[in-house]
């Protein structure tokens, strides 16, 4: 008998079928959901907390909460965006508890409108793409993780997650001006740490892929 992790994602290619499977707590549907969404959600939690164990806790807590509340999912956004919001809110709650100087507000319940409408999670109909080399990806990830907490959180929310400046500032309990200045500082630091790619000719990125 095949194991759930050998599942072909195309089995649940249709979101309605996947939702139906998740409501029934079907093991294959859960596997499909994890394969499709968990990697990106894990990296989001890791980038915000910089702690692999905490990122795993956040992902576990958020995904269990999402599946428990799957009947509340009204389809106003994609399932990926909905799960994304739950992970972001859970990660901010963890950060607030652990680092109240970084997340200065308890009022950070991000709404679907705060997240970009387009879900960038690859779907089974898309070929699996390696857009940048593993080495470059790891270098970028490390450069982001090396940013100080105050800069990293703003950078991840604004640049990687695509939140607006207003939503980023509101989630962290800082002013929009502070968010903009921190973002600029973060970008300057990344330009230094990724100088080999940023200072070179424009096609350096493609060549390294």
């Amino acid at each position, binding site marked *: 008998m095949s194991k759930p992790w050998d599942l072909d994602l195309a089995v649940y290619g249709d979101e309605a079928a996947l939702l139906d499977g998740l409501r029934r*707590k*079907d093991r294959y549907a859960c596997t499909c959901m994890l394969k499709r969404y*968990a990697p990106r959600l894990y990296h989001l939690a890791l980038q915000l907390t910089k702690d692999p164990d905490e990122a*795993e806790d956040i992902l576990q807590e958020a995904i*269990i909460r999402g599946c428990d509340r799957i009947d509340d999912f009204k389809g106003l956004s994609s399932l990926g965006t909905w799960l994304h919001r739950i992970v972001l809110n859970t990660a901010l709650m963890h950060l607030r508890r652990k680092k109240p100087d970084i997340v200065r507000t308890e009022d950070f319940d991000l709404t679907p409108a705060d997240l970009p409408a387009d879900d960038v999670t690859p779907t089974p109909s898309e070929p699996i793409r390696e*857009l940048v080399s593993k080495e470059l*990806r790891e270098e970028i990830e490390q450069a982001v993780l090396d940013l100080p907490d105050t800069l990293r959180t703003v950078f991840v929310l604004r640049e990687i997650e695509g939140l607006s400046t207003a939503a980023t500032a509101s989630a962290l309990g800082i002013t*929009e001006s*502070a968010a903009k200045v921190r973002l600029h500082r973060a970008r300057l630091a*990344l330009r230094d740490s990724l100088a080999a790619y940023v200072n070179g000719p424009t096609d350096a990125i493609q060549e390294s892929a």
Partner: protein
Amino acid sequence: MMDPHDHESCRSLLASLDALAVDNVDEVERVIAEHLDSCPICAAEEGRLGELIATYSRTMTSLPPGLEARLLNRLCPPD
């Protein structure tokens, strides 16, 4: 060949940003945009960094070994 850029003017820009009123978002935006308009090297680097980050954000990632199985067992405990 492009001259090496020491970000000196960028760093003084940051000092000026710190001096701005913290709730003056338009002014922060204006000062940063003005600097990028007047500094082609910074503008080019900003463009490349944006391209790099956008590509990175769309790239497939993977989970640490064993995490998918641990999550699955929490969601659907085996019989």
